Structure formats: C-alpha cells, structure tokens
C-alpha cells in the first residue's frame, strides 16, 4: 500500500488528483509537500475543502515530509505525495533517497519555459534537474491521468510525446 504516486503538479490538489487518480488507485490520504502551504492555515483550509471527508490530507514542509516519509510508507492505506515544483521534489529525494518513481502531472507555462507536452513546460534548469534525478536511478515519467500512456523522460524532453 503506502504512497502509490509521487507527483509534481503546480495545481497541487485538484480534480485530476482527487478524482482522476484518487478513484482508480483508491487513494485515502494525500501528503502535500510545500513550505508555503505548510505555514498557512488559510491555504490548508482551501485545499482541505477540495477533498472528500474520508480522505486525509497532511501538510508538510520538505524537512517534515522527509522525516515522516517512512511512516507514510508504512501506512496500510494508499496515498499520494504532491509537490508543486521540481525543486521541492528533488529536495525531498535528496533528503530521503527513498523515492524511486516520480510522475510529472502538471508543470504549466511560465516565462522561460519551453513546451514539452500539453501539460509540461520546462526551463533549462528544470530539465537539468530532471535529468539529474534520472541519472540517480529515479524513474521520471509524465502522465496527467491514469488512462494516458506514461511518457518516459527522454520522450518528454525530445518532444516525441507531442507526436
């Protein structure tokens, strides 16, 4: 059981996560890793409002999530861990060395980013960070919803995923 999905998505908790992945994976808890959200009661209330009452949401800083990851992984239920950007996920991987697979679920347009997929736009330093994760053995792939084919990092960066 434990955490079934480690996802980078700048929308954090939203429909694709709660319903699109939540239903087929039978997710019953979400770990939202974001230093800003972890320090804001208002932000936490906002995200909590978006999930059904039977789903637990844990709000952690990167450091807290790193300390608690082993506990989350021993949870008998299924969960998802979300970060809003690549840097946060990379920091968590650095601190734990215990994440073997990362899902790119939504990294949208921003100045300096180049479109790689319909839902993945990357700046050069972000591409470098993803390549660094892959070189360390982390399986990085893009997949917005479970019904879509997962695209390996090489397909994403080469633009093959758009064909």
């Amino acid at each position, binding site marked *: 059981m434990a955490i079934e999905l480690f996802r980078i998505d*700048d*929308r*954090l*908790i*939203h*429909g694709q*996560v*709660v*319903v699109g992945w939540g239903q087929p994976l039978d997710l019953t808890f979400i770990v939202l890793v974001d230093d800003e959200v972890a320090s804001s009661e*208002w932000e936490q209330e*906002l*995200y909590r*409002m*978006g*999930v059904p009452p039977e789903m637990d949401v844990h709000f952690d800083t990167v450091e807290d999530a790193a300390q608690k990851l082993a506990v989350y992984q021993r949870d008998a239920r299924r969960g998802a861990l979300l970060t809003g950007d690549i840097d946060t996920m990379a920091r968590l991987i650095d601190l734990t060395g215990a994440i073997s697979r990362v899902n790119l679920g*939504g990294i*949208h*347009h*921003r100045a300096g980013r180049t479109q790689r997929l*319909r*839902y993945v736009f990357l700046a050069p330093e972000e591409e470098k960070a993803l390549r660094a994760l892959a070189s360390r053995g982390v399986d990085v792939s893009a997949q917005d919803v479970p019904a879509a084919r997962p695209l390996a990092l090489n397909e994403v960066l080469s633009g093959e995923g758009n064909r």
Partner: protein
Amino acid sequence: MSEADVAVRALVAGHGDFAVGIVSAVAQITGRGDAFVTLSNRDMSAADVERAMRNEVDARAIEVIFTDLPAGSCTMAARRLQRERPGVVLVTGTNLATLLDFVFHTDVPASEAAQHAAEKGRAALVVAGGAPSGH
C-alpha cells in the same frame, strides 16, 4: 426582454468543455445563455486560472461563480478570489437545474438567485429504478 435580463450575471467555470456545454444547454432550453460567461481550466496552471477568473469578474462586475467540482482548480481559484472580494458567491457542484433556476431569477440580486439556484440543483438529483430483483 429588458437589457438587465440579458446582461452577464455569472461566470461558469470548469474542466474541459463543461462550461461551454452546460451554458449551451441553458441557451437551448431558455434562450438565456448570454447570462453567463464561461471559462475552461484546460491546460492552465492554478495561477493562470485565477488570473483569467479575476479578469472576467472584474471586467463584468460578476458576483456569482458557478464551478463543476469542489476539488477542481476553478473552485480553488474562486475561493482565492473570494478572499479579495468577499461579496462574490461561489456555487460548486453545478448542474443544469442550478443554472436554469438562476437565469429565471433576475428580479433578485445575483447572490440571492445563486442561493436559490443551489437549492434547486441539489433537489434535482434523482435516482429512479434499479431495485434488485426479488426485492
């Protein structure tokens, strides 16, 4: 129909073609689809959705936002907008019955019409048939 009857009174926002689709249904049934402006969150970041929503709300002095899903990024954006504009009303879980009721209540403030419409939408959900055989 007076000018007030056809003015945009609310924003409908959601996933994919939800907003355009449900407003087209309102137009087909009532001819009053122009009471709404629509927004899709397709391929947009949370910040983009919030920006687009803020632009529509400010440009048209919109007081009511209808969204499709409580967990959706449109709902999140509307909640963020409400922090700056507490007078804005959000209705999430919108269905066709909700919007049909809303367009016919032009004699009350939009916020009041939204409350009434939400009740109608909730009451419109009906399950018929399907009893297991032998019961």
